[in-house]
């Protein structure tokens, strides 16, 4: 009896450790087409297949941590191709740089989920029925079960044996019902018994867990279509408007309408950051980044908002993240006549933790030739041994802008998009630095220098507000923001939490059956208590002992023998 299948048992794949061996597995009759299909389906939805697929999934996920992935680290992939020119294309052929979107990885998890669904659906049906079924008949020989106690109780007073027996069984049924068991009376001849079962929640939990995993997968898969992420850069004092135009890059999912983005704008009022002072542990380490924004939804009054690391700003269903920051020196370039041909704050890209930053200025119009300037900005300039400069501290202690000038063709008129952070000097002539004998331009905020060849002048504007101390605030900051819309994230979370709850129930709720059988023997009652675990149940024996104890106490029982 103990391991056979009856109506109340959870349905398990045929090769579940608890299932009875099925004779059909051994003698394989000739199979027709449908037979083969059925056989294949049974293989796919077997425990062994699920197990093998799980292990395969674990193994298949590993290469993605060994080799850079396009999704997580596109620059790493580019670098990998440069470092391993022979190996990289071969790996690429095996989708090694897109492991988690590769055909083989997808095949494994899709098969796994098909197996899962094929396994869960029949179990759900079965469980639904089991939920409404009565606890099973009391086995004839309780002493053969996993846990068993027997006791004899003297019948005291005037009561006859039959009444006493029925009273004892009713008491047991009452106690079991109170303990959360579903109970059913089964009487055969002289033996009265109650059959009790609990722990349906275990199977429910298990099914919820597996179904919720499907939910997670679907939410992730479908959700991707409605998700977009975009990047933008805002310099202090400037405004970003949420249209495609204002993004530096934009990656929409398949179903995103790019023309119908939420109409709002963000103005960067101030970016603040603190640096660990010199002389302390971790000197120069940056922290407490905050972008103070003025936010405005179309047609509404402006409000204030903040973006911090770990604290994205919610804006009309979008989430806005702070991804980076830097300095944006303001430069004004005048031609030989003193007319302004360029005046802008230009974001410089930080190269190290002390904010040595690299930037490019392009002046396409207004001068005889197109002009390009490349240079570094050092918030705290110090000379290196080699004579070159570096920044020794990320805040504005000794800010210096050093630039080299190129003239010629910027290569931006042919319509090919060029990065604003690089200067293609192939068709340009170097006018300063390098081998030209003309020194590079070096400016502190507020200073002006002549451009070479009498082209004009360049001014490094001091943006400090009135009354600022030292160089504080003399150079504008910018932030790079990442703007996301992910409608599915909530669903993923809901399913993940469901899975977690199901897991707890599926692993911890004990599923067990208990029986109490009472047989009158002359002037005493022979009472048996027995339990059967369905699945892992380390506390079964204790539960049977406790049942015997409680019931015995209530009856006023004396002698117990196991």
């Amino acid at each position, binding site marked *: 009896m103990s391991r056979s299948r009856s109506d109340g048992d959870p349905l398990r794949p045929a090769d579940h450790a608890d299932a009875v061996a099925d004779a059909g597995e051994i003698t394989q009759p000739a199979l027709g087409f449908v037979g083969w299909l059925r056989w294949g389906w049974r293989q796919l939805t077997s425990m062994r297949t699920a197990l093998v697929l799980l292990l395969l999934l674990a193994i298949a996920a590993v290469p993605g941590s060994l080799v850079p992935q396009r999704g997580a680290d596109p620059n790493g992939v580019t670098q990998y191709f440069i470092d391993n020119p022979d190996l990289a294309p071969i790996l690429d052929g095996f989708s090694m740089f897109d492991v988690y979107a590769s055909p083989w990885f997808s095949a494994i998890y899709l098969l796994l989920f098909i197996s899962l669904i094929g396994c869960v659906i029949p179990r759900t049906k079965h469980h639904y029925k089991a939920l409404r079924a009565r606890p099973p008949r009391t086995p004839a020989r309780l002493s053969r079960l996993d846990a068993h106690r027997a006791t004899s109780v003297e019948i005291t007073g005037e009561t006859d044996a039959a009444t006493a027996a029925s009273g004892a069984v009713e008491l047991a049924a009452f106690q079991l019902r109170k303990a959360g068991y579903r109970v059913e009376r089964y009487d055969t001849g002289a033996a009265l018994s109650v059959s009790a079962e609990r722990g349906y929640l275990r199977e429910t939990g298990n099914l919820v867990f597996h179904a919720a995993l499907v939910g997670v997968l679907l939410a992730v898969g479908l959700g991707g279509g409605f998700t977009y992420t975009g990047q933008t850069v805002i310099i202090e004092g400037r405004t970003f408007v949420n249209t495609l135009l204002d993004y530096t890059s934009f990656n929409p999912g398949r179903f995103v309408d790019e023309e119908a983005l939420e109409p709002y704008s963000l103005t960067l009022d101030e970016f603040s950051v603190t640096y660990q002072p010199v002389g302390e542990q971790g000197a120069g380490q940056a*922290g407490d980044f905050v972008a103070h924004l003025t936010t405005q939804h179309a047609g509404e009054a402006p409000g204030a908002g903040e973006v911090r690391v770990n604290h994205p700003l919610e804006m009309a269903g979008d*989430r806005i993240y702070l991804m980076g920051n830097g300095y944006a020196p303001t430069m004004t370039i005048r031609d030989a006549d003193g007319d302004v041909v360029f005046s802008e704050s230009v974001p410089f890209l930080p190269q190290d933790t002390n904010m040595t930053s690299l930037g490019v200025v392009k002046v396409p119009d207004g001068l005889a030739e197109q002009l390009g300037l490349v240079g570094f900005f050092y918030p705290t300039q110090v000379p290196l041994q080699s004579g070159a400069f570096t920044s020794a501290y990320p805040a504005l202690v000794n800010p210096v802008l050093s630039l080299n000038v190129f003239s010629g063709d910027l290569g931006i008129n042919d319509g090919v998009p060029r990065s604003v952070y690089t200067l293609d000097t192939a068709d340009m002539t170097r006018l300063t630095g390098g081998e030209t004998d003309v020194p590079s331009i070096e400016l502190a905020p507020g200073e002006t220098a002549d451009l070479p060849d009498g082209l004009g002048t360049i001014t490094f504007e001091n943006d400090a507000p009135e009354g600022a101390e030292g160089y504080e605030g003399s150079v504008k900051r910018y932030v790079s923001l990442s703007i996301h819309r992910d409608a599915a994230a909530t669903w993923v979370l809901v399913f993940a939490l469901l899975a977690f709850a199901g897991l707890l129930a599926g692993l911890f709720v004990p599923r067990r059956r208990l029986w109490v059988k009472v047989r009158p023997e002359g002037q005493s009652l022979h009472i048996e208590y027995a339990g059967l675990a369905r699945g892992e149940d380390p506390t079964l024996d204790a539960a049977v002992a406790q049942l015997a104890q409680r019931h015995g106490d209530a009856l006023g029982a004396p002698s117990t023998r196991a």
Partner: protein
Amino acid sequence: MPDSALLTLDSVSVLMVWTAIAVYALAFIAYAIDLARRSALAVDAQDAKGRERELVVAGARSQAAGGGADAAPGASAMDILRAEERVADAALNASPARRSRHIWARIGTSLTVLGFLFHVGADVTRGIAAGRVPWSNMYEFALTGTMLIIAVYLIVLLRYDLRFLGTFITGLVVVLLGGVMLGGLYVEIVPLMDPLKSVWLVIHVFVASLATALFAIAFGLSVVQLMQGRREHKVAAAAASDSVVSTPVKTGPGFLRTLPSSEALESLAYRFAILGFIFWTFTLIAGSIWANDAWGRYWGFDTKEVWTFVIWVLYAGYIHARATRGWRGSRSAWLSIIGFTAVLFNFTIVNMFFKGLHAYSGLS
């Protein structure tokens, strides 16, 4: 001034770390002596039983000669095995007051408790010195993680007599903590990086360490289970092939005789593994929520995420293996071992050598 005060507090912490390591090393030795003595005891007991058995068998044989019936060959070896198992399984569940007095195991446990006190002291002073939870770089993960391993072990001792895992637990902690200190992974206290300033640091990392501690115990049990399973196999094989009681066969380390049956070890290992699995699942979910706040996506197959996922799937595989015919027993034990190997790999190699967003080891 506050500066030097902080520094001294941290150096006190470091001093306590070294003390803890030294005391754990002593505990390890005591536990090792305990295992060796159990072997000796088991051999003595075996000899005594052997003599007894010879008498019984001799008697049976003379009876058999008289009655013309066959004495069941080898049955007594199996009986002894079963009897040993019953005793050991009962000992496993004995409450602390009623445990057998393995004196060296007691010394080992006392030393472990002592080392643990220093360990807690080291962890707490580090936390106070840093002004935050002491688990935000690799040195601190190691410090707190190993502390939790010992804590879980000591708590579990209140319920089960797992002192036979003492060598493994103290050995593991000495190696991990000693490795961190000698391997130059110690880092001075620096302010937290912004992405780490989150309640999720407190929750996510702590729960992950807790899961690791539970997996460690499951691992230890699975290893012993495999050894025990091999011994049981050999005893059974020897019993089946020997027609007469003869020279005792070598069946592995003697202390195994005093340990629970492979089945009892397996179900205990399973219980720790599923607890660990639940904490790990929570770690995974909490990590995704944190990633969504810090990096703007809840999942991106960053190296650390990949390994967290791999470990999760491996343990899901283990749970399935336990429920799959033909996989229960040693095969599933191997999965528990592989799972914990991946946990250790994730903590050491992945932290130190793999590139990714989780670059918080504090090493450069």
